[in-house]
């Protein structure tokens, strides 16, 4: 039961004023600018854009500042802002094959055409704290080399040419949109991918990890991981043609997984797919593994009862804003709810003790 309770406004106002002071922290330390967050905490900004499901680095940086670095709170702010935006339309599907790659690696083919490009990666670092960063440092300088203008074809295209992997035929269906219609089951792959792309990185990572440990195992290889800039185009009705409306940084992961086949069809590798805003490769790889696990039905695999195969479990628990909204609401006042529980438990205890007393009397007589 919910009843309106008044009072507490002064306490709330003062709590928010103190929050603002705490956010700023020790005034003898220089204030962090939104631009500093955008540029120097870029991977936090990327996560907020990916899970906030809105590509706008300045807004994500502002949200991180306002949330005092609590990324889920920042994602909440972005999601709330997103709902105020009128929808101007949908882009043409981006061409990730034409990505201007900062990073592009394949774990399946050493000599991939276009090469193994490591990009600005944490891989192969020793994970030792670098105390030089705590001191005033010199301006770091990356090495450069004469760039090779050759294209970077998709790794899966090679397997595809020989029919060794399931094709991914182009289609032009209008995909369902869970920001317009509530997510309902059964969810087709387009809807699942949208939910995973905005899902919590930790949750999607754990689900993916569970498949690797044997709960719905599907033997993934990272066929290709690429990170870079992609042009976004949209058809403009009043102009009658498509124009470039901007550029986004994306991470794409294609996995090559265990094969399926039948008496009539020769065995083929299968695919998992991950695509995320920003440089967010842990999330993109996780997304690809979970996408693959959720495809068990269309690929004719057995339901092993693994959590990662359960679309309802995965999709209804992946969203950290839904999850934290429901979880955190229980800390808000529930006085009346609790009062009725208190009365109930007192009544049951009184009845139980009366019955016990009666039984004791009987035994004494």
């Amino acid at each position, binding site marked *: 039961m919910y009843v309106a309770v008044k009072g507490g406004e002064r306490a709330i106002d003062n709590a928010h004023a103190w929050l603002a002071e705490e956010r700023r922290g020790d005034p003898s330390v220089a204030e962090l600018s939104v631009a500093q967050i955008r540029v120097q905490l870029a991977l936090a900004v990327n996560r907020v854009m990916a899970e906030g499901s809105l590509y706008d680095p300045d807004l994500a940086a502002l949200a991180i500042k306002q949330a005092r670095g609590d990324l889920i709170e920042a994602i909440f702010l972005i999601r709330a802002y*997103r709902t105020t935006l009128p*929808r101007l339309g949908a882009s043409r599907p981006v061409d*990730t094959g034409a990505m201007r790659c900062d*990073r592009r690696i394949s774990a399946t083919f050493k000599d991939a055409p276009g090469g193994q490009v490591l990009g600005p990666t944490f891989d192969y670092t020793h994970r030792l704290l670098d105390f030089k960063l705590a001191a005033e440092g010199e301006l770091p300088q990356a090495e*450069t080399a004469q*760039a090779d203008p050759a294209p970077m074809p998709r790794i899966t295209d090679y397997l595809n040419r020989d029919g060794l992997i399931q094709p*991914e*035929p182009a289609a032009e269906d209008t995909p369902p949109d869970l920001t317009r219609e509530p997510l309902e089951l059964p969810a087709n792959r387009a*809807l699942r991918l949208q939910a995973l792309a905005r899902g919590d990185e930790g949750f999607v990572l754990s689900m993916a990890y569970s498949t690797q440990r044997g709960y719905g195992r599907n033997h993934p290889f990272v066929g290709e991981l690429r990170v870079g800039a992609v042009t976004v185009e949209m058809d403009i009705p009043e102009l009658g043609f498509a124009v470039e409306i*901007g550029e986004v940084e994306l991470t794409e992961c294609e996995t090559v997984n265990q094969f399926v086949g039948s008496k009539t069809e020769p065995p083929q590798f299968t695919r998992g797919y991950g695509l995320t805003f920003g440089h967010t490769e842990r999330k993109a790889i996780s997304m690809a593994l979970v996408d693959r696990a959720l495809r068990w039905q269309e690929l004719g695999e057995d339901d092993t009862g693994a959590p990662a195969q359960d679309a309802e479990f995965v999709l209804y628990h992946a969203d950290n804003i839904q999850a934290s909204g429901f979880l955190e609401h229980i800390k808000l006042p529930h006085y009346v709810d609790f009062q009725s529980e208190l009365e109930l438990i007192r009544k049951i205890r009184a009845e139980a003790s009366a019955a016990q007393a009666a039984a004791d009397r009987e035994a004494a007589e």
Partner: protein
Amino acid sequence: MGLLSRAPADRLEALWKTLGIDDPAFHWLRAPETGGVMVRGRMGGTGAPFNLGEMTVTRCALRLKQGADGHAYVQGRDKAKARRAALVDALMQTDRADDLRRGLLAPLAQDMADAAASRAARAEATKVAFFTMVRGED
């Protein structure tokens, strides 16, 4: 329009100032409006489309007093930049087109090519050159 949509607002404004063109008289066909565009991807990069997430876009449309229409769809939330982009788009249909192409669009294109080349050069330096260790036996 692609150049204008991605150009940094301060760079666009600075280049405009170098042209010495006064803001022409115009009226709005659609006042600047910020909204979201749903960015789509394809399954497996080549398959059926799905909704990835939105991006912020600001659009406007205007008509110059002398007649030409200008449209702008620019990334982000900067209404002043959208207005500038739409004015440039409209003026590209007038006798100012050559000035704009030379003094504004070409430098913007060069900036973007330079930025892309600078990232590509850094990426190239991180390309792995595999070699096989020679083993002892023949």
